[in-house]
Structure formats: structure tokens, C-alpha cells
């Protein structure tokens, strides 16, 4: 009796018996039903008696006992109703309504539904809900710091939630048997309640009967569901093992297993598992075999990326979140500073919660040595002292995770750096962390240190992104082997990159802007100095732009190229940005051709095409007119993410030319004196 699961057994058995009785009852087999009700009552009283007798360890909970008794009561009621039934017509049964206590609360409604979540807690469906809820990560940030200004970047937690919400719209998960049953039961309960409400207050008998049959149905549903769930789980487990073996076989050829191989193998197992559950991969593969076509490739990949539960998409989200999580602390504290923009140290308040304690340990060192976890700091060769966590533990709180120590170093540097510029701004934090008297001498050093640290972060993040994209591509190619040809692979990569970069680009470029802040400032100064300059002022030969303003009808020369280049910052994917640059250069060539034709209207149009000697000055002019210092950071980022295959092609050439033009513009304000000489060229 005292076996592990005996706790629930008496009640369940009793329920089963009562159910049988009700079934007989429903089948108009009154006599048998009557007996079955009595047997149930008998069983219940027996079970309860036994329980009561073995005083030592009362296994059955009071709730359980109460439920059993209530069930007995209901069975008794039903049994009573049979007395004299043979005489009465089936519907008119007023006999036993009196004297019996009507059920004050419908017990099944209270009891059964509450057990449902408990049963399904371990089911896979529950996991879905867990994902949607924000993951508790180490850093809790203050989302709104009163009147303080918020950074334009979402905290990683919110970013992650948006990721999942967005992808959940596209596909719904199938319900597990238990979930299905619980839905069914909810419907049953609703019906029951509706029916109960329609009953007259005196009809206790019907009430009881409804209650019992609801209880029975719900119980039944759950038991069936449980059995199905168990069977399903067993099958899933078997299948998982089988697929695992398959994946092992596939990777066996590669010999020794590195950690990456291991990870790849697990991912591949997940893919196989997914493909057992979904038909579309098979269908697409068949399509591709019949008709291997480039347009089909893009369709396939974009379809794949819309399936939020496919392992590729899960991996994509994981990597995006990781990158964003690294970017956020670096970029959320303020945008790249051009002289015109006020600095906003108040952004740092975002991180207050966690970092207070840390600052004390870090800040007290006086700006000469900073501490951080070595594993996250890519460079060890600098003035910064990256200690091991072990030696660090004595004075840092144990709860600190990597990002935080990161963040705090950053924050500390940032604050030191900005403090003198904003002595007028009231900021309690600044007062805490920096001793104003030490500031002036350290300022430059610290600024340099900050930039250097940011550069290292940037390098590490760029590397992470490359690794992430490589991994995504190879998983994609593993999932669909038909994509593994040189040209299809490129298409596949393009789609992956677009999906990967789109939500990340603004944060990514913000970091690039911080790192290239000085260059942007130089660009901006030149931009202002030369805002009214003509193409000739930056070295464009006279024959390549119209001197007569009427020809242009109010717009500036090369206006179409300028407009095109302005669109660059709006795209969120490197490949598209690159295409934008190529279009800009092509437009320049087309415009140049037109302008030259204007000059040579009389003479025969000889095709002396423009070369780099002409192209670069024009491109510099277009960049100036674009009035967008952010181009500097954007192009620096493109440089990192351009495909190797494009490097020596037209895209590579255009990007290189753009970079040269930008660098030339940056240098313009310094060499203004010798401009007339340039003009002569």
C-alpha cells in the first residue's frame, strides 16, 4: 500500500469505478449502475478506513480524503435516486431532491482543472512559454531612470523578447496530448457551467449528475492524454537516439572531434529531428532536385528563416542575442560625439544597479590600472591590467558576470573621460567616481585608453559575427545539401546575412561610430567648410560638370548620385549597402558622361571614359554633398563584412574608392590653404 504512487491510487480507482457506474447509468442499465455506485461507495469507505487505521503515516492528504468522501456522497445520491425509479418516468424524478445537501461548489471544476498544469509542467510545450518570458540574465538594468534620457537601444532582454515574439507570429506550435486534453476539458467545464446556470435552484439531482459526468469526462480525457503523452515521449526518445546515431555516422568521417564539431553534431541532430516532424524540408528538397534554380534557392532560404522553430533559426536568434548582449553595454551609453552634439553622461545611470559595488573596487585604483575578467578582454598587451577572475574574487562581488565587468570598465573609462567636459552638468555618479583634481592630466590618456579598449571590443565582436555567420551557413548547408554549390552557397549566405544583420546593424554601427569618432569629426568639419563648394574646388575637371547653373535646374551637380548615397544609412544589411555604393558610382559615371556630352555638343562624341583620376574627385564631391559623417563608420563596417569573393570585384573596387574619397574629405579641412593649387589640376 505504501508504494510511491499509492497516494493517488485510491482516488483514481474510485473515480474509475464511479465513471463505470455513470456509463452504465447513461446506458440505462439501472440495476448494474446502482450496484456499481454502491461498490464505489464501498471501495471508498474501505480505502478510507484502511487509511484511518494505519495511523502512523497518513499518506493520504486531507484534500484527497475530502474528495473521496464527496465522491461517495455523490454516488450515494445517485444510488438513492434509483429507488422507485422503475415506477417513475425517467424525466420526472422529484423523489430524492429533498434532504440531500446540494453541492455547494462544483468540486470537479475546482479540483480537476487545477491538476492540469501540474501534469503538463514537464511537457515540451511548457518550454515555449519559458522562452517567451524574458530570460533572467545577470544584469538588471533600470529601464527608466526617472527624467533621465534613455538610450535608443533596447536592453538585451527586450531585444530577445522581440526576437521571439516576432518569430512566433509566423508559426504556431502543435499542442501536446496533455495540452489538447486540458483545452478540451476547459470547454467541457464551460459547457457544464452554462448548463448549471440554466438549472432551476431546486434541481439538485441534475446538478449532481452533471457534476459527476463532467468529472468523469475530464478525468477520462486526462488519463487518455497522459497515456498518449507517455507513448509519444518514449517514441521521441527512441527517435532522438536513432537520429543521434545518424548524425554520429555523418560526422564520423571527420576524425577527431573538436568542441565545434560536437556542437555542429548536436545541431545536426536537431535538424534531423525537426525534419521528422515537418514535411516541408522534404518537399523543398524534392523541388530543388527537379529544378535547381537560383530563385528557388532564395525562396527556400527565406522560407527556412521564417520557420521559428527550425534549428537554423534558433541558432540565428541565439547568436544575434549574444552579439547584441555584447554591443549593448558599449553603445547604450551615448552615441558617437560630434562637436555639435551634447554628450549625455546620464546614460550611464542605466547600469547603476549592478555596478555600484564594482566601482568601488575598480575606481579606487585611480585610473591607472583597471581590472576586468581576462577571458573577455581580447588584449592583454595594454596598460590595462586584466587579472584572472581567481585573484579578482577577493574584491569583486561573486555575482558579477562577464558582461558586467566589461561594462563597468567601459563605464568607468567613459565617465572619467567625459567628466571635465561636463563639469556643469550635475551628475552624482561623476562626483563619486572621479576626483576632479586629477582629471586634466589623465584626460588624454584615458580617452586614448577608452578608444583602444573599444577597438578591442569591436575586433572581438566582429570576429564573433564572422564565426556566427560561418556556423549558420554550415548548418544551413547541412540541412539542405542541395545548396552546397558555389553559386547557391553565396545566395544562401546573402539571405542569412540579411536576416542576421538587420536587427543588429544600428547597434553595430553605433560602436563603429564610437571607434571612428575622430574621423567623423574631421569629416564633419570639412563638410561644413565645403558646403558651398563646387566640384571644381575638390579637383573635378571642368569638362566633367556644367558651369552653367541653368543646366542643372536648381539641383547640384551629380545630384542623383548624392541622393543615392544618402540612402546608404537606411539599409540594414552590408550586402545592400554595398550595392548602394556600386549604384552611386555607376550614377556618377552616367552623370559624368552626360556632362561631358554637354561640353562636346559640337564635336563627335568620342568615348574617352572616365578613369580613377576623374572618379575619385567626383566621388569626394558627392560624399561632401551627402552631409552624412556616419558614412565613415558605415564604410568601416562594410570593410569588415564584405565577402572575400567580392573583394576584388566591382563591389570591392567601389568600396575602396568610397573609402579613399572619405579619407580625402576628412583631410580636406587641414589642407585648405593649398586648395587653389589643386584646382589647377
Amino acid at each position: 500500500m505504501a508504494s510511491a504512487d499509492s497516494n493517488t491510487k485510491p482516488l483514481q480507482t474510485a473515480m474509475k469505478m464511479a465513471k463505470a457506474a455513470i456509463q452504465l447509468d447513461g446506458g440505462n442499465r439501472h440495476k448494474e449502475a446502482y450496484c456499481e455506485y454502491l461498490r464505489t461507495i464501498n471501495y471508498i469507505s474501505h480505502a478510507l478506513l484502511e487509511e484511518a487505521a494505519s495511523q502512523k503515516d497518513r499518506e493520504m492528504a486531507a484534500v484527497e480524503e475530502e474528495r473521496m468522501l464527496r465522491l461517495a456522497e455523490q454516488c450515494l445520491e445517485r444510488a438513492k435516486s434509483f429507488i422507485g425509479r422503475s415506477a417513475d418516468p425517467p424525466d420526472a424524478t422529484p423523489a430524492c431532491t429533498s434532504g440531500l445537501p446540494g453541492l455547494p461548489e462544483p468540486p470537479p471544476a475546482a479540483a480537476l482543472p487545477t491538476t492540469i498544469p501540474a501534469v503538463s509542467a514537464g511537457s515540451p510545450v511548457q518550454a515555449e512559454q519559458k522562452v517567451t518570458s524574458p530570460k533572467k540574465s545577470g544584469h538588471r538594468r533600470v529601464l527608466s531612470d526617472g527624467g533621465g534620457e534613455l538610450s535608443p537601444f533596447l536592453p538585451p532582454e527586450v531585444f530577445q523578447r522581440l526576437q521571439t515574439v516576432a518569430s512566433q507570429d509566423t508559426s504556431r506550435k502543435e499542442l501536446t496530448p496533455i495540452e489538447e486534453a486540458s483545452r478540451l476539458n476547459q470547454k467541457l467545464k464551460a459547457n457544464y457551467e452554462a448548463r448549471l446556470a440554466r438549472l432551476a435552484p431546486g434541481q439538485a439531482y441534475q446538478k449532481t449528475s452533471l457534476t459527476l459526468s463532467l468529472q468523469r469526462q475530464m478525468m477520462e480525457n486526462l488519463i487518455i492524454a497522459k497515456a498518449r503523452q507517455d507513448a509519444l515521449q518514449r517514441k521521441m526518445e527512441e527517435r532522438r537516439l536513432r537520429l543521434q546515431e545518424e548524425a554520429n555516422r555523418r560526422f564520423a568521417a571527420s576524425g577527431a572531434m573538436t568542441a565545434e564539431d560536437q556542437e555542429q553534431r548536436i545541431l545536426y541532430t536537431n535538424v534531423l529531428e525537426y525534419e521528422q516532424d515537418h514535411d516541408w524540408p522534404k518537399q523543398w528538397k524534392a523541388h530543388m532536385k527537379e529544378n535547381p534554380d537560383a530563385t528557388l534557392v532564395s525562396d527556400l532560404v527565406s522560407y527556412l528563416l521564417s520557420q521559428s522553430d527550425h534549428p537554423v533559426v534558433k541558432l540565428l536568434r541565439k547568436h544575434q542575442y549574444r552579439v547584441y548582449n555584447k554591443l549593448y553595454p558599449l553603445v547604450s551609453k551615448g552615441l558617437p560625439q560630434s562637436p555639435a552634439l551634447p554628450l549625455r553622461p546620464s546614460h550611464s545611470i542605466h547600469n547603476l544597479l549592478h555596478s555600484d559595488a564594482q566601482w568601488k573596487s575598480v575606481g579606487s585604483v585611480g585610473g591607472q590600472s583597471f581590472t576586468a575578467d581576462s577571458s573577455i578582454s581580447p588584449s592583454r598587451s595594454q596598460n590595462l591590467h586584466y587579472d584572472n577572475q581567481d585573484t579578482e574574487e577577493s574584491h569583486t562581488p561573486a555575482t558579477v558576470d562577464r558582461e558586467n565587468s566589461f561594462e563597468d570598465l567601459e563605464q568607468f573609462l567613459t565617465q572619467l573621460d567625459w567628466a571635465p567636459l561636463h563639469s556643469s552638468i550635475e551628475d552624482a555618479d561623476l562626483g563619486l567616481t572621479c576626483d576632479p583634481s586629477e582629471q586634466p592630466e589623465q584626460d588624454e590618456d584615458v580617452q586614448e585608453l577608452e578608444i583602444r579598449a573599444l577597438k578591442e571590443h569591436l575586433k572581438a565582436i566582429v570576429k564573433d559575427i564572422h564565426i556566427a555567420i560561418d556556423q549558420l551557413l554550415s548548418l544551413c548547408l547541412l540541412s539542405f545539401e542541395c545548396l552546397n554549390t558555389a553559386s547557391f552557397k553565396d545566395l544562401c549566405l546573402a539571405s542569412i546575412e540579411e536576416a542576421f544583420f538587420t536587427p543588429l546593424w544600428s547597434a553595430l554601427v553605433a560602436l563603429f561610430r564610437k571607434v571612428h569618432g575622430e574621423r567623423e569629426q574631421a569629416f564633419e568639419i570639412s563638410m561644413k567648410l565645403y558646403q558651398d563648394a563646387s566640384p571644381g574646388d575638390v579637383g573635378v575637371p571642368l569638362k566633367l560638370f556644367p558651369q552653367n547653373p541653368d543646366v542643372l535646374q536648381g539641383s547640384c551637380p551629380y545630384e542623383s548620385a548624392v541622393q543615392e548615397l544618402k540612402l546608404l544609412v537606411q539599409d540594414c544589411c552590408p550586402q545592400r549597402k554595398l550595392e548602394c555604393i556600386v549604384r552611386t558610382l555607376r550614377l556618377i559615371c552616367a552623370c559624368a558622361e552626360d556632362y561631358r556630352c554637354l561640353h562636346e555638343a559640337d564635336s563627335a562624341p568620342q568615348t574617352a571614359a572616365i578613369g580613377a583620376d576623374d572618379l575619385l574627385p567626383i566621388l569626394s564631391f558627392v560624399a561632401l554633398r551627402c552631409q552624412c559623417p556616419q558614412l565613415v563608420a558605415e564604410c568601416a563596417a562594410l570593410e569588415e563584412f564584405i565577402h572575400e569573393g567580392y573583394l576584388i570585384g566591382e563591389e570591392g573596387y567601389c568600396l575602396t574608392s568610397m573609402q579613399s574619397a572619405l579619407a580625402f574629405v576628412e583631410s580636406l579641412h587641414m589642407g585648405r590653404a593649398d586648395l587653389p593649387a589643386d584646382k589647377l589640376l
Partner: protein
Amino acid sequence: MAAAGAGGGGRTYSFKVVLLGEGCVGKTSLVLRYCENKFNDKHITTLQASFLTKKLNITGKRVNLAIWDTAGQERFHALGPIYYRDSNGAILVYDITDEDSFQKVKNWVKELRKMLGNEICLCIVGNKIDLDKDRHVSVEEAESYAESVGAKHYHTSAKLNKGIEELFLDLCKRMMETAQAEERVKGNGASQSASSRRGVQIVDDEPQATPAGGCCSSG
């Protein structure tokens, strides 16, 4: 991928060649002349003479040539390195009637050797031989200089279309030799992809022109 070089044509070599030279030496005409297509008037790419490509077949091997023009003006000089990084070859053009343009070539040679070492194939080109009567750079001087820096010297005339074909063909052959030598050193090209960013780029034969063959199941 292990399927490299399976087909009859083997690989496609992709080479990057930078074009260097002062403003008026005629490098644009030179390269335009070379990429001219006799059967098509619209031979110039959308980027005109700044960036040109040419597909060649040399001794049964396919070669894709990407020719990068650079700005000759002094003020763009500082940006040179980003143009010629990863180049396999460089064509340095001077005007035989302009001593100054030859001096510029010498400067570029120095810089290229400093930045790229000996892996880059250098061609020094005396252009405008149709104006031989105004020659200011002697043939002997130019050729001995070229030899001294490990470069080859050529005489061309864009106007008369002389010497240009030979120049590019010769350069391609030299770049192929360099690439093959590099492959041998690297152990039969087992890890080419790792080095593709620097130096030779060798891509697998792509089935781009023949959509019916080679896709999906290449068995």
C-alpha cells in the same frame, strides 16, 4: 570542399591587377584598348575605365582579370595602399616623353615592394611610343631600371594599339606561375581558402553558365 579541380578545365584563376601612373600618361586609354570588345560597341562597364574585367583562356586555364585603376593625383596618394592590397600584379605606366612620370613610377615601385614584397608581378610600361621623336626617357635607362627591381619592361602605344596585348598576356602568365608556385609551397593547395584574402584567389569551377549541370547531386 573536396571537389576542386574535378572538371576538365580545372580551376579559374582570379587575379587583381592595379594600374598606377601619373595623370596624363594614358593609362586609361591603355586599359580601355585592352578590354575593347570588337563585337560590341558597349564594351565599357558601368564604371567605365575605373574598373574593368576581362576573361581569358591561357593554355587551357581560365583567368578572370580584374583591373583596378587608381587616381594618379598626389592628394590621393596616401590612399594607395588600400587599392593595391591583395593585388597579384601591378602595371606602372609612364609617358616616354615625360621624365617626371618615370620618376613617379620609381616611387611606386619602392612602395609596392615595401608593402607587398616580391609576390606581386610588376610591369613597367613606357606608353606613347608613337611619339618617339619626343622621347625623354631612354630605352636603356628604363629597361635596366626595370631589371634592377625585378620588373619587366614593355613599350606600348594606346593610340596605335601596339604592345598592349603582349603586355597583359605576359603578365597573366607570370601571375599564374607565381600562383602555382605558391600552391606547391602550400602543399598542393589543401588550404587555399585560408589564404584567399591575401594573394591568389582560386575558386572552384562554378556551374554558373550551365544551369542544367552540376547542381545538387554532382554524382
